[in-house]
Structure formats: structure tokens, C-alpha cells
């Protein structure tokens, strides 16, 4: 979790704004994420936290601002979003910033192992045997080696999400983006996924996590950012924001969340 001194940020978001029609969802976000850091983004639904995450890997097109991942910079260019050069740069960013989705999004017609090796082989050109070895390593890491040849339809929610994490890891990205990874899970299955994420955080993976699970933030976050109405209200290291919020809006949010 300790960042090497003098390291440059893995992810840099500069003055990001996003409009959906006339809805000003992100109103000027700037963020730097350094190697080995785990960042948690918390906030109400509609505050823009998922939109921010999805702008980093361009699942949403930013309206204004710049995204930089692993030294690759792409500026918001909503007017030319379909241009081939723009698309290729975005693809390169996506290879380095793998996302784990709330709804898992595993490919149901492929076995677990095939879910993991499809992109490494056909997108990155990794030789098949090497891709399989890497996939099996990460499948073991999330504790699902025995499910290698199963179809996703036969897995529980927690297992699917762990496979999804393994799929992201097999691409060996520079940063992992987690979009509310446990929100669609039955409460009894949340723990197994958080355990995997905590391990990754402690081992030094660079992670940006949008979550409602405050216990995870407390346990694994290097910094917690509170976002409200499209801007960062405050940020603090580790659990400071959770324990000693300085802004009233943060206090209100935490009080409501704890009550639930």
C-alpha cells in the first residue's frame, strides 16, 4: 500500500465535467491516484461517483477535461468521439484500467476459464498456454480454481464477482476500477468478495473503488473521497473521513448510511 517515493500517478483526472443533456452530473473533478494506492469513492446515488469511474475508462464520454492512465492522455472530445484514432487511444487506456462491474457481466456462453483468457489471447496477443497459466493463477487467488470449467450460470453471485475480479486481473492492468462490486450481492455473499478486494489492496494493487461498504473503506482505503452533486466535498486518508468528517454534508451522508 505504500507508494514508492517520487512515483508519477497511475491515474490523473483533470477538471472533469460530464453533462447528460442538461444534467450537469460532474462539475469539475480532479484526482490523482498513485501506484499501490487504494482509493474509495463514497456518496449518494446520483452524486456522480459511478459516472466518474466510468469516465476514467471511457464507458462514458467526458464532456470536458482530461483523463490520463499510465501516461496515456486522452482529452474530452465529445464532438469527435467516434473518430478512429480517439477510439484506439481509448482502447489502450481500457487495457490498463480494468473494471469490475456491479452486475458482474460475465460472458454466459463461455466457461469460466474462457471468460478469463478471451481478451488476453485475442486482444493482447498473449500465447494461449501463457494466458491459461496466468488465468489459473488469478483464479486460484480468488479461490475458485475448482470452477475453472464451469459456466457462469452455475455460480453464486459471490463466485461470479470473484471470477469477474480474476478476469480483470488476468489482463494485468495498471489499475483496477470497482463499480459498486457488492451492491448486487446477497448480504451473505458480500464478505467473500470484500475479502478478495482487501487482500488485493494490502498486496499493493492500485484500486479505485466506488462502494457503500464503509467497513471495506475503513479496512483497505489509503484515501476516501466523498462526492456530492458532482464535486469532491472532502477527502482524507484512511478512515479519517469516516470517523471525523469535517463538512456537514459528509456528516449527513454518513449518518444516513450508518442508519441503514
Amino acid at each position, binding site marked *: 500500500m505504500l507508494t514508492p517515493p517520487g512515483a508519477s500517478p497511475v491515474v490523473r483526472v483533470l477538471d472533469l465535467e460530464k453533462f447528460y443533456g442538461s444534467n450537469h452530473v460532474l462539475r469539475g473533478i480532479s484526482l490523482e491516484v498513485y501506484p499501490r494506492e487504494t482509493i474509495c469513492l463514497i456518496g449518494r446515488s446520483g452524486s456522480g461517483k459511478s459516472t466518474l469511474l466510468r469516465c476514467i*475508462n471511457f*464507458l462514458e464520454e467526458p464532456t470536458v477535461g482530461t483523463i490520463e492512465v499510465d501516461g496515456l492522455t486522452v482529452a474530452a472530445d465529445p464532438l469527435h468521439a*467516434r473518430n478512429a484514432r480517439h477510439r484506439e487511444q481509448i*482502447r*489502450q487506456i*481500457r*487495457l490498463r484500467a*480494468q*473494471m469490475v*462491474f456491479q*452486475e*458482474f*457481466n*460475465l*460472458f*454466459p*456462453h463461455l466457461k469460466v476459464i474462457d471468460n478469463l483468457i*478471451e*481478451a488476453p489471447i*485475442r*486482444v*493482447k496477443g498473449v500465447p494461449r498456454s501463457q494466458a491459461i497459466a496466468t488465468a489459473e493463477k488469478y483464479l486460484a487467488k480468488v479461490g475458485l480454481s475448482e470452477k475453472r470449467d464451469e*459456466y*457462469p*450460470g452455475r455460480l453464486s453471485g459471490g463466485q*461470479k464477482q470473484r471470477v469477474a475480479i480474476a*478476469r480483470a486481473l488476468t*489482463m494485468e492492468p495498471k489499475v483496477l476500477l470497482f463499480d459498486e462490486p457488492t451492491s448486487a450481492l446477497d448480504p451473505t455473499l458480500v464478505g467473500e468478495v470484500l475479502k478478495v478486494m482487501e487482500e488485493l489492496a494490502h498486496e499493493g494493487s492500485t484500486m479505485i473503488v466506488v462502494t457503500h461498504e464503509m467497513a471495506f473503506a475503513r479496512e483497505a482505503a489509503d484515501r476516501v473521497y466523498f462526492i456530492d452533486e458532482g464535486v469532491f466535498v472532502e477527502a482524507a486518508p484512511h478512515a479519517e473521513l469516516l470517523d471525523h468528517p469535517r463538512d456537514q454534508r459528509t456528516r449527513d451522508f454518513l449518518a444516513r448510511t450508518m442508519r441503514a
Partner: protein
Amino acid sequence: MVAPLAARGPLGLGPGPEAIVRAVAASRRSARLRFRLVFLATWIVLVGGIVLLIGSTGRVDLDFLNTWTPLILGGIPITIAVSVTAIVFATMFAILGALGRLSRVAPIYAAATLYVSLVRGTPLIVQVFFVFSALPEFGIVLPAFIAGTFALSFNYGAYMTEIFRAGIQAIPRGQIEAAASLGMTERHTMRRIILPQAIRIVIPAIGNEFIAMIKDSALVSFVGLHELFWFARTVGTSHFQAFSTLTLAALVYWALTIFFSLFQERLEKRMAASDVRL
């Protein structure tokens, strides 16, 4: 007052809960069996009645049928060959058409939409005759099998285009987002993620189209292809026994559709059992 069944244990005092479950299942099974038997009996009565009606017309010459039925039934392989070939090519037209209808490239979208509109907007029989009678005016004389199969597949392809388009659009957006996030190009995503799932979704609809195709294959008799209907019509009209031969042909088509429908039902059940749902 007798204690409720569930309260009596399995120690010889009466049936326990497992016995109740078994009894209920058995009674459901026998109810289903009764239903099927009555269904079968009703069909036997109704079909028997129709057969008697047909027999009573006096227009059915059994010797005649004895002689000519084998020849007429000899058309069945061609009927099936045409239907199978046509559905395969129709599927290919349909996939291209669906991709065209989903295209963001204006000329491709326009061409695909024209295909669907034009072919669905004109009668199949007109299209079959077009291939048979109109093309030769330009020196294009196709062998009967190719002409008939092409007309059928081109026509069905237009209808199945919309089926495939709906199937592709039924794939959840999350699949596309996951593929994009993994760095897959749109073409890669369509080929490896979307189409394989879409085809699985549309298989029941294609099965229905195939069954309809078996009946529409009768139209290719008009391009001179010697299939079931051609034999039935030719033999029947030349011997003034059209009633017999056409009734026979109708029964054969009916039998074919029933057969393939049952086959499709079984296939759908098997697919549902091993359904890969998320």
C-alpha cells in the same frame, strides 16, 4: 378426531410427510395421463370422422392411390432438401440484414432497410415467379433447385432479419460494456460475444420459420422443381384424382410439421435445462 397426517410419524401410526408428497405427485401424474389419453381419444375421433368423411365422398380410389402414392411420396426428400438449404441461406441473409439494420453507416443501414421493406412488401409467390419467369427475359436461367431455394431464402431472410435484430438487441448492455472494458473491438465483440448469445436466443424463432418454410416450399413447384406438391398436382390433375392426391399431400405436410414441431419442442426443453443464465 383423527390427528392430521403430518402429525402421525413413520412408526406405523400412519403416513408421514414424505408419503403425502409421494401421494400428491402420483395423483398429479395420473391426472396428466388422463388428460393425454382423452386428448388422444378426441383426436382419434375427430380425425377418424374426417377420414370417414373423405371416404364417403366416393372420390378416393384405393387402387389408384396404391399405384401412385410411392411416386408422390418420392417428392418428400426434395421438399426437405429445399427447406433445409433455404433456411440455412435465409439465416445468412438474416445475420447480414440484422447487422445492416443495426449499422451506424448510413448507406449500409439504408440498403438493409430497403431489402427488408421490399422483400416483405411483395408476395412470396410473385418473387418465386419473378425468378422463374422474369429473369429468363434477361438471359438468366437458373436450375430449378437453385432458383426456388434462392427465392425462398431471400424472402425468409428479410423476415428473419428482424428476428435477429431483436435477438442482438436483447443482449444486455453490460455484455458490451464488459467486452469494451477488456479492450475488445466492436467487431470482436459482435463475433465472439453478441452473435453467439443472440443465435441461442433466436433458435426457437428459427425453428418456427423452418416449419413455415416446409409449407412454403410447395411454391417452388412453380419453378419446375419436382417436389411433393408438384407430384401431387401433376399426378392428380392428369388422372382426375386431384382430390385424393392433394389430400394426401396435405396430410404429408401436416405430418412433417408435427414431426418437426415435436423435435423443436424437445430441443427447446433441452436448451432450457442447460440454460446459461446470468
